[in-house]
């Protein structure tokens, strides 16, 4: 038995080394190499190694993590090893979610390859509508917001105050729509074929705290880190200090997972710090609430918490989006410059989106928020079915022609999904 366990451990280590080795080679070698070179040069040590000039395989972080989850689950006896190589290969390379998730657990996805999928009209329809919604979010919202965001973030030194605030808020929605649209299209496409993928986003900008945000944002990655990193590190079972340290490790690694740059590390670290502060100050905050007799269930208080959480998330996104660390510092220094009048003097329309494009951007964001508010207690796809065919089809056709007319494609600059790079 011991020999068997050793063998299992050996294969797990091999699997981890190979998977993480490939990921490291493609994604992190140059980052660590550059960082080490900078460190050596700081201490005047004459040593430098050259960079590797290779293309980063699209979505490598996603399928590496999915492959790792299989190895670890088998090692932990959570699932039976898959003996059919084709099915395993399909699990790792299942095309709808291959390049940007959701990161599926082997125990959820693998068994679905053994089920015979029957034609289900309603399921296919639901899948197609979800894909349509995904296209709307990507082509109409995300890519339109990207025009303004890119203008500002690619030359932040030309901007101050309100402009930087608007660009940062727009980026928050851009990245959400960009990433969640891919997820919607992936889930929808899988659904059309009879497969169920896990939910990856649950109205994250309506979160009332940072921990809640992480339970609603990129859910599959959060769950992966929780299960395969946070718990093995000890989770919250080894005292407050260790819990906080574990949180910081998970978020810094999560930052690194997104990209090999100090900006991503700081972004992850910032979210870690938010969480640590939130958990350590919980007791004091509760006392304050009781002392000032604040009703935590009131709409006003909820709204305040949602806005505060959103602001914290937007602050962190600045590091995520800025091209360099220097840019991030500049943006933070100039974010609070008071030049509110630029909203009214028309200069806001010189940032890539003219007045009409800006109106479409804001209007489409209102559609997004209305949809999410409606989704809180309803299911729009099910509710649509209660309408007669004329209304339903008008809705579908309006959505399709909305995408065709107002979508950013064709003569506009071609854009990829942001998360393809991760």
């Amino acid at each position, binding site marked *: 038995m011991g020999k068997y366990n050793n063998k299992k451990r050996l294969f797990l280590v091999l699997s981890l080394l190979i998977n993480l080795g490939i990921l490291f080679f493609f994604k992190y070698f140059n980052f660590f190499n550059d960082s080490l070179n900078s460190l050596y040069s700081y201490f005047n040590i004459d040593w430098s190694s050259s960079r590797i000039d290779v293309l980063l395989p699209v979505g490598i972080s996603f399928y590496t993590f999915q492959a790792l989850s299989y190895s670890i689950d088998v090692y932990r006896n959570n699932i039976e090893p898959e003996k059919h190589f084709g099915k395993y290969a399909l699990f790792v390379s299942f095309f709808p979610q291959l390049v940007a998730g959701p990161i599926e657990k082997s125990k959820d996805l693998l068994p679905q390859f053994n089920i015979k999928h029957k034609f289900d009209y309603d399921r296919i329809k639901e899948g197609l509508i979800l894909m349509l919604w995904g296209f709307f979010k990507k082509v109409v919202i995300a890519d339109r917001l990207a025009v303004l965001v890119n203008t500002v973030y690619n030359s932040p030194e030309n901007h101050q105050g309100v402009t930087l605030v608007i660009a940062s808020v727009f980026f928050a929605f851009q990245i959400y729509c960009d990433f969640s649209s891919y997820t919607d299209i992936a889930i929808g496409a899988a659904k059309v074929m009879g497969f169920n993928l896990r939910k990856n986003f649950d109205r994250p900008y309506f979160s009332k705290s940072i921990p809640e945000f992480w339970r609603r944002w990129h859910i599959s990655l959060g769950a992966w880190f929780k299960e395969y990193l946070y718990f093995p590190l000890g989770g919250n079972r080894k005292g407050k200090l260790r819990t906080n340290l574990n949180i910081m490790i998970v978020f810094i690694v999560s930052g690194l997972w997104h990209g090999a740059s100090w900006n991503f590390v700081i972004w992850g670290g910032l979210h870690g710090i938010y969480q640590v502060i939130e958990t350590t100050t919980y007791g004091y905050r509760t006392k304050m609430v009781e002392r000032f007799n604040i009703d935590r269930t009131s709409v006003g208080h909820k709204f305040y918490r949602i806005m505060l959480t959103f602001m914290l998330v937007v602050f962190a996104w600045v590091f995520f989006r800025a091209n360099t660390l220097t840019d991030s510092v500049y943006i933070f220094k100039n974010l609070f410059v008071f030049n509110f009048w630029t909203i009214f003097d028309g200069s806001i329309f010189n940032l890539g989106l*003219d007045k009409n494009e800006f109106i479409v951007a804001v209007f489409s964001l209102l559609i997004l928020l209305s949809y999410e508010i409606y989704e809180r207690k309803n299911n729009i796809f099910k509710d649509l079915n209660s309408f007669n065919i004329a209304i339903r089809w008008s809705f579908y056709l309006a959505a399709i022609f909305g995408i065709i007319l107002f979508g950013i494609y064709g*003569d506009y600059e071609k854009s990829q999904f942001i998360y393809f790079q991760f």
Partner: protein
Amino acid sequence: MIKLVLKIVVITIIIFGVSYLSSSIFLKKELLRAHNMYLLEDENDILFVGSSHVFTAIDADFLENRTNANVFLLATPSQNISQSYYLIKEFLKHKKPKLLFLETYSLKEYVGDDFVSHSAYDGMKLSKTKIEAAYDASFHDSINDLYSFSSLVIPLFKYHNRWNGELTKQDFEYFDNTYLNKGSEIPTANSEFTPTDLEFIDYDLSKINEKTVLNPDIESKLKAIIQLCEQNNIKLVLFSTPYLAHHGYSVGNQIKNTNYIKSTIKNELINYLDFNLLYKEIDIRYTDYIDSHHMNYNGSKKVNTYLGEWILKNYKTYLPDRESEKLWYKYFDKKLTNEVVFEKETHFSTHDSLFIEKITILKKGADSYIIIDLNDDLNIKKFTDEVSSDALRMMVHFYPDEKDSDKIISKEGFINQDFKPDIMDFKGNKFLFSKLENKTTAEINFYKFANFTFYTASKGRGNVLTLFDLKL
């Protein structure tokens, strides 16, 4: 299952049907030159196919007047050989010309860029030929562009962003108000060259005897065009207008390709005419160009005078004589009925006994015409003398909006300022004074106001006789 398939079919038909129909609104109307082939009611005798070299040099009205045959230009910017092939194929569904002039400059490439493809195919109605053309332009060798294909078939996908401020009333009414434009767009601007550019003209291109093998795709499309001509009993002339380009696909390349064709494709249907070899014969000067590729009104006049005679000399017996049908006048009568945007009685005297009694402006599609009615036939000569001796110069400023009246759209944009055209006889005591391009700048496609002025050079440039401001 059947229910779903049915629904998908219906929704697909609705989506593509509505997208296709609404494309006509979103299309850029200045790229619809090819659409004129569907508006051609009369028989066509001579068809010119090629690039902007053709529509800036070949004057359909002039040639019709000279040859008594019906002329039409199926020319689009930077047209390449595959586009020529599909446009001819589509044209032959409607009309059967006797003589086809195919510009050899189109041998330069097989597939053009996005703008070139749309310029050629946006005016084409949806048909199997158009789908083949779009496929050829989008999936060829290393090009594999589904978006290009779908936007060529359904142009809404290309022009959807015109919702943002570009659509005008004209876009909604265009197809209801469109009348035939035979395709010529002769620029009236002066040359941008200086006499030092003459060296290109002086170079004796007839010394080029080398042959350059055609790219196999280009050769196969050329052969396909020859086959279409054979099937439809059309005489083919491989021709080139004069141009000065000495970079990219130069005149030299074009002549070498033509030499190769002459030596390899033996076919009695084919004739050759290269104006680049006739510089001295027709006295082409640097002032005859607006740029290195395009003739202006002066150059066009020389080319068309020679071409008219050349057609009569080589094909007179082959072409029908339509003088009795007076299609040339019919065409202009129709224009006078439908396309007058301005008509004003006047008693404007340039000097002495020369009176302009009426000025009429016709404008449709890309062309504008100014027709001047003089007080009698005798004065046509006087007027012609005035203009050709530079004693009288006409200046027209068109501008898009009343508030922009001080903005003269000229030189860079509207290129009609202060030119000295040759005058073409028209019927009676009217004559066609000028042909203008109404294309001004990329943003201004349709002018609304004009300021119409004569300069009498003898009294000095400062002495301006402003005839009137007109609101079109």
